[in-house]
């Protein structure tokens, strides 16, 4: 079947842009190629909840016309993109992979989608996720699981599992995800792609269905860091509709990508010792230490640092994110839109039954956890204590970053696990977020990029986290890393050039 998947689907955004600019390929051809790929592969993978075929092709045709008339809207005009199903788009469903919003059609468009549209990027469709972005494996989707393109028996990670799987499988060159505790970076690492969690405030959250408002951030998933930088140029920027957006974080994200023999000379990477202790799988640790050596070879300095409060980050994260979620998800009450129970005796029962019937287990667990953490009498012990940890962690990370450009750590303690392996034990699932939550709690930017394969042939990811304004540097370093010796070459589950599957 794969001979019908054209080589276009294996190309990076940078390569596609070059072809478009040279007039060697049209946006329509590119878009059609990806749509074909979706048709071929998504039956198995199930990354897409809906494909906007006609709309995407119409968008591509307009992009081609603009290009012919030399009035392209952006560097990415005509490059298709797919979005996680928690970003609203006028006239389209936005389900958050929940029964609650299965039929919710948004009357308005999120800022980030408006920016994609303004850049001329055809939107391929909506991507699967854990319900309301709560989860780390996309198994909490009410719309069915998404499978890891590297091995269909494995999870793609989550909550942006659809986004990561779609990029890895060549079904879209770019996907947007959202990251509240690792939901872009962890699936990126499980699927062997690059995932970027920008600093809090870089990308507008207006129109992103809120999970935990103080932690949520939208970012791109792509094949390479250089691709992600191009996408960041499109989606970053101040938005008057989001009071937490920060225009100072807008930058040209492609400028720091350097070449040469020692492109990382002068940069120091800190290895937090707290990230390399118990719970970290040996081959992940080896891959990370190997990556550290490679960074050194590129001219960087690598040293051990300490972030003493790091072990408390996970607990603080689950308290804060659940507390905010319990409030954010309260609006889904069956009254004005979304799921409403068929039978109810009174208002209270309408609320109770609608929520009982339409929310999945994990969402209920978090809502209950968060409601408890905010209850009077318990708030000091949980919510306020978690906020104190947050302050402490901010301080500790800032200290560790005083003489380092970035902290280098694993993205997750293990590579992707088998479907169903961790669904029985939510605590074990939560522990998988241990390395990613610090970036959300501190609001700092972090990049996840592939740094090797496990013995079972699954991707391993590494994380770079830096100061608030460091994303261009992080992406530059990531781009140098991936370009050096073409370390990531061949890190695809499919061999697109041969037109045949690797495995």
């Amino acid at each position, binding site marked *: 079947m794969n001979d019908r998947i054209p080589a276009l689907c294996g190309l990076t955004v940078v390569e596609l842009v070059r072809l478009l600019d040279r007039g060697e390929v049209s946006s329509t051809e590119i878009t059609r190629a990806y749509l074909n790929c979706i048709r071929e592969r998504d039956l198995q993978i199930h990354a897409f909840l809906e494909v906007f075929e006609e709309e995407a092709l119409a968008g591509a045709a307009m992009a081609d016309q603009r290009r012919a008339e030399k009035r392209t809207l952006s560097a990415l005009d005509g490059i298709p993109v797919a979005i996680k199903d928690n970003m609203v788009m006028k006239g389209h469903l936005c389900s958050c992979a929940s029964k609650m919003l299965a039929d919710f059609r*948004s009357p308005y468009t999120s800022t980030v989608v408006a920016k994609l549209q303004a850049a001329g990027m055809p939107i391929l469709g909506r991507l699967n996720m854990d319900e309301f972005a709560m989860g780390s494996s996309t198994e909490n989707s009410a719309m069915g699981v998404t499978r890891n393109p590297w091995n269909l028996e494995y999870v793609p990670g989550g909550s942006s599992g659809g986004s990561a799987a779609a990029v890895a499988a060549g079904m879209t060159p770019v996907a947007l995800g959202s990251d509240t505790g690792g939901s872009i970076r962890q699936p990126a690492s499980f699927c062997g792609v690059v995932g970027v969690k920008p600093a809090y405030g870089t990308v507008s959250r*207006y129109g992103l*269905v809120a999970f935990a408002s103080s932690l949520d951030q939208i970012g791109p998933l792509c094949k390479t860091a250089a691709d992600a930088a191009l996408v960041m140029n499109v989606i970053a920027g101040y938005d008057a509709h989001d009071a937490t957006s920060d225009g100072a974080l807008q930058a040209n994200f492609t400028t720091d990508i350097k070449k040469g023999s020692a492109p990382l000379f002068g940069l120091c990477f800190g290895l937090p010792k707290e990230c390399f202790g118990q719970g970290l799988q040996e081959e992940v640790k080896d891959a990370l230490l190997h990556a550290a050596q490679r960074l050194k070879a590129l001219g960087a300095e690598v040293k051990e640092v300490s972030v003493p409060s790091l072990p408390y980050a996970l607990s603080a994260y689950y308290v804060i994110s659940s507390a905010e979620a319990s*409030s954010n998800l309260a609006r889904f*009450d069956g009254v*004005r839109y979304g799921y409403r129970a068929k039978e109810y005796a009174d*208002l209270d029962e309408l609320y109770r039954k609608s929520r009982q019937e339409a929310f999945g287990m994990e969402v209920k667990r978090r809502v209950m956890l968060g409601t408890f953490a905010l209850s009077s009498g318990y708030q000091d012990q949980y919510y306020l204590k978690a906020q104190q940890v947050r302050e402490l962690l901010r301080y500790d990370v800032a200290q560790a970053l005083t003489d380092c450009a970035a902290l280098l750590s694993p993205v997750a303690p293990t590579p992707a696990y088998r479907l169903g392996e961790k669904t029985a034990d939510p605590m074990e699932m939560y522990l998988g977020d241990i390395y990613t939550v610090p970036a959300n709690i501190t609001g700092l930017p972090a990049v996840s990029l592939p740094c090797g394969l496990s013995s079972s042939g699954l991707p391993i990811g590494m994380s770079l986290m830096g100061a608030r304004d460091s994303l261009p540097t992080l992406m530059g370093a990531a781009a140098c890393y991936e370009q050096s010796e073409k370390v990531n070459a061949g890190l695809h589950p499919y061999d697109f050039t041969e037109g045949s599957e690797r495995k």
Partner: protein
Amino acid sequence: MKLGYEMVIGLETHVELHTRSKIFCSCLNAFGAEPNTYVCPVCMGLPGALPVFNEQVLRYAAMAGMALNCHVHHRSRFDRKNYFYPDLPKAYQISQFYRPLCENGFLIVQTSGGEKRIGITRIHMEEDAGKLLHDEKNGTALDMNRCGVPLIEIVSEPDIRSAEEAVCYLRKLRAILTYTGVSDCKMNEGSLRCDVNLSIHKPGEPFGTRTEMKNLNSFQSVEKAIEAEFERQVAAVEAGETVVQETRRFDQKSGKTTSMRRKENSADYRYFPDPDLPEIYLTDEDMTALREKIPPLPDERRERYMKEYSVSAYAAELLTAERWLADYFERGAAKAESPVALANLILGEVFAQLTARDTQHTGERDESSLPISPEHLAKLSDLMNSGKVNSSTGKKILGALFQEDCDPERYAQEHELFTVSDDRVLNAAVEKVLAANPDMVVSYKAGKLTVEKALMGKAMAETKGKADPERLRRLLLDSIARL
């Protein structure tokens, strides 16, 4: 103080701020539109929508705080108050709990018992909820126009000891806020709503358990509700019952309060800082600029009217109770030969006509209900005061001005309404009346002096009501004496 009990009252007053747009979105903040026309994803609480704070709300709230002698904090913050109700689209209200904008204020009221200081605990900003419209046929519908209308909640100390004090407090609050220009405080439109917290005790003993009566929307219902609830609590305590902490509803018709819900079952609001909204910050410069924007407040104006215009304390209090009225009076007084006469005209005949014209009995007045320019009213007042038109003609002219505002002098001229004081004209009228009513003259001469009034009326009618009444009366009596 019935049976030695004293009532202890604290008021929570919700005031809608008169901003152009809503508190967290750019929808118009307006009353009376078609349901669900002034709405957007933000105020409807749609998935993904985010609030952005309208800074005008901050300015107005801070000015209200300053006008009410509060400490206005440089830093404050919004919190979420979480509860489920169909009129609350996000299932939380964005309010201020932990760090309100204003604290520790007071206002001074004049009651029949003299001057009284009532403390203000705090003033915080919040968003209003929508309105549920109940309909027998179609069930309950939701109008979200009011969702996101900016409110301040003003919480008083439990310093109030009578229904009169409560009403004085509310009137003063309304005067100060309308002066400051932050709200129109129309109780009938719900832009000023009041919750009453009331308990009883005997002086020297600790306060009793309080009950709360919510959303009282007229001064009269506040007064009646307080009296009814006081009676009820006294009766309960005297009967050996305990007062339970609860929310009670005041029924206008029966004049009684009834239990709505017990407070111990009430929701835990789980307040926490709203992560969508950054901390609010007012600089010293902001504070100074806002303080400068606060116009002279009612007390200051009252003093000035007494001094500058020699208006009585009573009249000055009434004239300053509402800003539009005080503004109106000042503009007129600047033109009037006698500001005292103008004040009397306003508080007398103008108020009477306003009441007569208020066919809906809303008791609400504003500048739109008085369509006469203050300059014209001042001129009318002068015409009446100097006797150029007599008082009954003056009233007629006033009525005409209510219909269509114009220069009263020209109106009097065109309609020949000036006082007739020409003795020849007046004498002719007197003679005519006396000749036509000889029997009345006889009974007057026989000692029935009340007949004078009837004869005056007839003579006045002969002049079409335009005679100088004093002169006419003198001529009439002189003529009768000569007969």
